[in-house]
């Protein structure tokens, strides 16, 4: 079986690239989830 990556450098480039994309997702997703989580608290205050 052919390995996907012959070099550690190739593997790291791939993996870190994917992780940077996921990080962008996390940076957007986590605050949004917090907004959802705490959404009612906020609303109550305005009523």
């Amino acid at each position, binding site marked *: 079986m052919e390995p996907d990556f*012959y*070099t*550690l*450098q190739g593997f*790291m480039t791939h993996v870190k690239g994917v992780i940077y994309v*996921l*990080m962008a997702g996390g*940076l957007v997703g*986590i605050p949004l989830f*917090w907004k959802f989580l705490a959404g009612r608290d906020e609303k109550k205050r305005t009523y």
Partner: protein
Amino acid sequence: MGISRRKFLGWMGAAAGAAAASMKPKAAAAAAAKSFPGHPDSLGVLHDTTRCIGCRKCEAACNEVNNLPKPEAPFDDLSVLERRRRTHAGSYTVVNKFSVPGKKDPVFVKRQCNHCLEPACASACFVQAFKKSEKGPVVYNEKVCVGCRYCMVACPFYVPAYEYDKALTPRVTKCTMCAPRIAEGKLPGCVAACPKEALTFGPRKKLLEYARARIAKHPDRYVGHIYGEREMGGTSWLYLSGVDFGHIGMDTGIGDLPAAAYTAGPLAAVPLVVGLWPVLLTGIWAISKRKEKRASDELSAALAANTAAHEQKKREELSALRQKLSKEKEAAVERAVKQALEEAEKEREQAAAEAGKEGGRQHEPAARQGGAEKGEAEQADKEN
């Protein structure tokens, strides 16, 4: 960070023992460990320093095939060997002379890019200007290079150089292992020019076997180590020497880990910080907010309670005052009535006294009193 790092070091261990791992059955694939055997059939050069005579023909050939600028001293001037040199923007390779204690002949060593299997420059470059090609050479792409020179900081062999005198288009320069010539099926310039076969070009795996065979055949001539077999994860250029590599300007303390192993820990921590810091910080914020809210709630509750108590007290005071006032009012009315009556009585008495002075005949000014007087008068009449 710890776990990833350990896992990472595990991969490194696996990579170092790639030969052993490749013999094991595929069951190992199920494990987390990964191994990176390097590109198969990748090429390299074996430099046997015991054969080098320091003629600088390789330098001249390198200069020619790469169209480099004319050197300060011509290539047949061997006096330059007296000082220690390194690669520069205009020279991709240099030969240095070493006097080794206990040896009468000097040792010559050619220096150039070692074309690491896991290049530090490639790991360090933030625009991927360096790539380990499948054929073996580590190639540089000047089209994306920003000129930050981090590759030069990273390289453990002090190889990449920089065109410091170029104002707007400086490049990083280093040996290309003559990648364009290799692609044409030719030998690298230096290898082709070497008159003593101190340089051997071929597949790295073959070169290793060849080097081991040479050491086995002449154990008296060589130290039992192939420099570059494992150093910094292994290099495509390999070296044989008759003396300790430390004596001929090679760094023997750089270890076997590739450069990427040293940065893996902090790199692995990055996504954790990105994901967990917001969670932690939002938590701290929420707690401090809650505390603040509770404090302000308590404050306003205390304030409200205080106000209520105050109002209650006021109300009580007021009603007490009102009661007091109404009592006083009644008392005042009574007093006033009483006073009025008393005054009236006094007047009457006064009037009666005046009437008595004038004579008894005066008639009644007030009925009741008059009655009494009448009785008195009648009594007085009867007596008369």
